[in-house]
């Protein structure tokens, strides 16, 4: 049946000429007039749960892919700066996704657990997940849309009075939208839902230190299975912070200090994408600072825009 639907939509010439792919204004699956009366497309995306499955691949598979990404960038870039910017862009697209994903996963209420997730080794948050919750589906796209509706102007402008009550509404509205989607895709009824385990959304981090803690703890644990080795504030400039990794796993097989540090810009990009999407505009650079036994020790230097500091001063500094 699904094949039939695809045939219809893709054979429509007028649509084909108009479309350049994903229609951001319409959503993931624009519905055509003749599609309205049909049952909706089976989309794997909607039936997939955002629950942590904690799947793993081998580090070599990841580094082979990473290396191939770098070598193809190497061919097309003429300067180091160009290379670093492009690599960082790759990371940014990942970081911006992780912001939403990790915020949802960190919102799982500990009470709804029947098994403890191994997703975090960080001591700062305890995550847990339910083994089965039939009937509902996690719907990432819907969630994100909802999210944008809730705070479209970004975290910076969300009021401080956004306490429990409103975030509860927010979470329940997500639930509702999810139920809709699960009704439409009812045939995938055995997927665990992430949102079914969230009774209250985790408040977004509005302070610089809070979000940096989140990166240092949750993001790093998610990416590399351990918290970052240090989070430091610069003593000279008050807009600079440093996240330190003693042994960056992805770039460990790359030789030559200068080459290696350029490749760390992938991680810089992830950090930057994460922060920028959370409303903290910044610049992230990688620096090599060997210390003792850690020859590959890398410092990710985060320089926030002045506007971020000004905002923080206005909102949080008591007179």
């Amino acid at each position, binding site marked *: 049946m699904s094949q039939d639907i695809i045939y219809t939509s893709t054979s429509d010439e007028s649509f084909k000429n108009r479309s350049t792919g994903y229609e951001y204004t319409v959503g993931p699956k624009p519905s055509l007039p003749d599609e309205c009366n049909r049952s909706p497309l089976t989309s794997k995306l909607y039936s997939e749960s955002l629950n942590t499955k904690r799947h793993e691949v*081998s*580090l070599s598979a990841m580094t*082979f892919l990473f290396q191939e990404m770098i070598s193809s960038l190497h061919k097309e870039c003429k300067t180091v700066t160009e290379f670093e910017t492009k690599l960082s862009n790759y990371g940014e697209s990942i970081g911006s996704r992780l912001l939403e994903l990790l915020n949802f996963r960190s919102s799982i209420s500990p009470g709804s657990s029947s098994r403890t997730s191994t997703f975090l080794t960080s001591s700062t948050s305890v995550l847990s997940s339910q083994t089965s919750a039939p009937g509902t589906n996690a719907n990432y796209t819907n969630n994100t849309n909802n999210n944008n509706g809730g705070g479209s102007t970004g975290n910076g402008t969300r009021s401080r009075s956004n306490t429990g009550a409103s975030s509860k509404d927010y979470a329940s509205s997500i639930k509702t939208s999810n139920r809709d989607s699960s009704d439409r895709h009812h045939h995938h009824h055995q997927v665990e839902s992430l949102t079914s385990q969230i009774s209250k959304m985790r408040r977004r981090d509005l302070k610089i230190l809070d979000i940096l803690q989140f990166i240092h703890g949750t993001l790093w644990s998610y990416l590399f299975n351990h918290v970052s080795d240090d989070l430091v504030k610069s003593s000279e400039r008050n807009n600079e912070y440093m996240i330190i990794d003693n042994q960056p796993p992805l770039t460990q097989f790359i030789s030559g200090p200068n080459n290696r540090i350029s490749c760390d810009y992938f991680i810089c990009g992830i950090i930057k994408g994460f922060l920028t999407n959370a409303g903290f505009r910044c610049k992230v650079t990688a620096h090599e600072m060997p210390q003792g036994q850690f020859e590959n020790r890398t410092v990710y230097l985060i320089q926030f825009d002045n506007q971020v500091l000004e905002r923080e001063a206005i909102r949080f500094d008591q007179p």
Partner: protein
Amino acid sequence: MSRQQSINSSQTAASATAQSPLSRSFKATGEDVWKRTEKINAELFTLTYGAIVSQLCTDYGRDFTKINEQLFQMGYSIGVRLIEDFLARTALPRCQDMQETSEALSKCAFKVFLNITPRVTNWSSTKDTFSLIIDENPLSDFVELPMDAMEQLWYSNVLCGVLKGALEMVQLDCDVFFVSDILRGDQQTELRVKLNKVLKDEIPIGED
């Protein structure tokens, strides 16, 4: 008579198990090596691959034929280097036939690198072509293709390149290609491997 029967039955039993110890050893090797392998979050892998494909889509102006080629090419250069890593980890001997190769691919190679075990099916009558059914593809988690890409893009085409490159390095000249992909609305993701010929171990020019 009764003795002969017992001999016969023991023979058939032996021939029936002739293949399974082999495939069991592939399975055991794969699982054993996987346990000892350093691992990383599969979602980071998925997202990184996604970033690569979407960047290619921009770079090549959504010319999906070229993108398929490029992904294959990337895979190929991974494959020719990855085989070393694979052999070093598993210390597998040379496969005797394609049946063994298919088992090694599914139970060892895919297991060791991606922690999945695709099903081997659809053998051709000449036993030189088979399919790998990939039920769980870590490359395409959370992926949904836009409509224009659905027709032409083989999203996980990098895998074809990897297999092509790796098999070529062990003297197996193969064609590797996708015949269906769940992302395109197909029932299953099927990767086909077709042996063209077994290459001869050639001495590099000027070596003798």
